[in-house]
């Protein structure tokens, strides 16, 4: 891989963010609104719930982690959509850039934008609503890593879907996190779900993060083994997502989809 090629993709998105407040705002505004909303909900629940019950680490913590995952996924897809919106595919794909370099550029862009969102969420949730991440201990870092890796994998698959189905299919991408949330057990144990939903939940690495988070808050020992399994699962999903994107790209080159893409006739 050529570092300069990847830098080209990364710097394009840096220029776009630098010159456009409307692109910067969504990197933290929606997650901040979520934290404020759920912060007050947890405050209210703490006041009406049984004495000593603290909803902050379970509910607000879960919202923060889920928002982080969503930001990572959308970081990849939004970077990809910039090429869709500006009809830039021909310029990008008729260059020496390889698919691996292009996808790496999208992932690096997502790392930067999602870290900005995470920082804002941590400041707001900790400073205003008293969420302490020391509650989760050292496990917070691998939890974030699992969510990050799954967000990357899903972002790559969603981009492949838009490449295959056409620009109009981007509207199928935005609700993906909301669609997965019930299966991932963000706010409740997986055991709450019917068996078929649990089966899907077990294929989603975030479900292990939220199960583990609840176990720690309940004072149980950290689930290291399941965490290691979640990391492996997420890593395998990134490899599968990369393979999927490369396969869709090959299909688009073979059928002429890529060459015709900017006309939106494929939508």
């Amino acid at each position, binding site marked *: 891989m*050529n570092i*300069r*090629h990847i*830098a*080209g*993709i990364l*710097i*394009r998105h840096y*220029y*776009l963010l630098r*010159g*456009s407040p409307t692109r910067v705002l969504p990197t933290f505004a929606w997650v901040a609104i979520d934290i404020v909303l759920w912060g007050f909900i947890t405050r209210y629940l703490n006041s009406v719930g049984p004495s000593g019950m603290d909803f902050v680490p379970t509910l607000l913590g879960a919202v923060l982690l889920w928002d982080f995952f969503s930001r990572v996924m959308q970081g990849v897809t939004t970077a990809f959509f*910039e090429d869709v919106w*500006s*009809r*830039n*595919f*021909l*310029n*990008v*794909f*008729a*260059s*020496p*850039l*390889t698919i691996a370099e292009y996808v790496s550029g999208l992932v690096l862009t997502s790392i930067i934008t999602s870290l900005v969102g995470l920082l804002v969420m941590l400041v707001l949730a900790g400073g205003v609503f008293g969420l302490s991440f020391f509650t989760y201990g050292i496990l917070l870092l691998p939890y974030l890593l699992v969510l990050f890796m799954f967000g990357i994998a899903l972002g790559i698959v969603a981009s492949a879907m838009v490449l295959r189905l056409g620009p109009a299919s981007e509207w199928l991408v935005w609700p993906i996190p909301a669609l997965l949330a019930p299966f991932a057990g963000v706010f409740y144990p997986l055991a709450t779900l019917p068996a078929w939903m649990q089966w899907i939940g077990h294929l989603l690495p975030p479900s292990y993060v939220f199960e583990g988070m609840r176990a720690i808050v309940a004072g149980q020992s950290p689930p290291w083994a399941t965490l290691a399994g979640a990391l492996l699962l997420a890593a395998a999903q990134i490899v599968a997502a990369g393979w999927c994107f490369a396969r869709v790209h*090959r299909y688009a*080159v*073979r*059928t*002429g989809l*890529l*060459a015709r893409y*900017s006309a939106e006739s494929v939508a």
Partner: protein
Amino acid sequence: MHDDPHPPAVLSVHTLRKQYGETVAVDDISFDVRRGEIVGLLGPNGAGKTTTINMVLGVLQPSAGRVVIDGLDIARHRARALALTNFAAVYAPLPGNLTVWQNLRVFGLIYAVPDLRARIEQLLEQFDLRRFRDSKCGVLSSGEQTRVCLAKAMLNRPRLLLLDEPTASIDPASAHDLRQMIRAIAANGDSGILWTSHNMYEVEAVCDRVLFVSHGRVLLEGDPRRLPAEHGAASLEELFISVAREPLAFENGSRA
């Protein structure tokens, strides 16, 4: 054109074919573009010109045949072959939400251009773009955008330059200047240029050789200044109309 009577080919297209189901878009086309040479790819809409260019650029996989750029088969050495190639086309504008300088920087990195800042300054000067350096490409006129696309196409000093109707949306004076620039690039001798245009005056003024394509096949090939007389036409435009209307009459490379 280059002084060497047989300069090496920068592009060799061997029996290239593209078929979509029963429809044949490009039907066993073969041709070369040599260093220092400007080759015009002419034909009516839907003749297969852009399909051919897309296959040369690696964004469309041929059903059969080979594309070799400066000795590199694009099917096997895609990245290396495309590092020696560049293109400008009316249907592939640069992102309008980046400035001229930003676009040239981004694509300069993608093409791994050495000493990039100096190269960008040189191209801004060459294509008279200095005053638009910090303007977003989306607010430029068609002619200015075409010049930016050409500057991008020259970033990596390509061995093979593909120009798909580069003067289609610009005024005659700008088109004249552009033709001069492109002739100067070819005269340097390192690059070969494949050019498509519907302006026969322009083709005659710029191209060393033309290929008439219709229904995905090369029907005629030759010097655009001599070809009309060889086929009983008064001008290149008249010959173009004859080929477009009666392609079967030219099936064997001459009027039946």
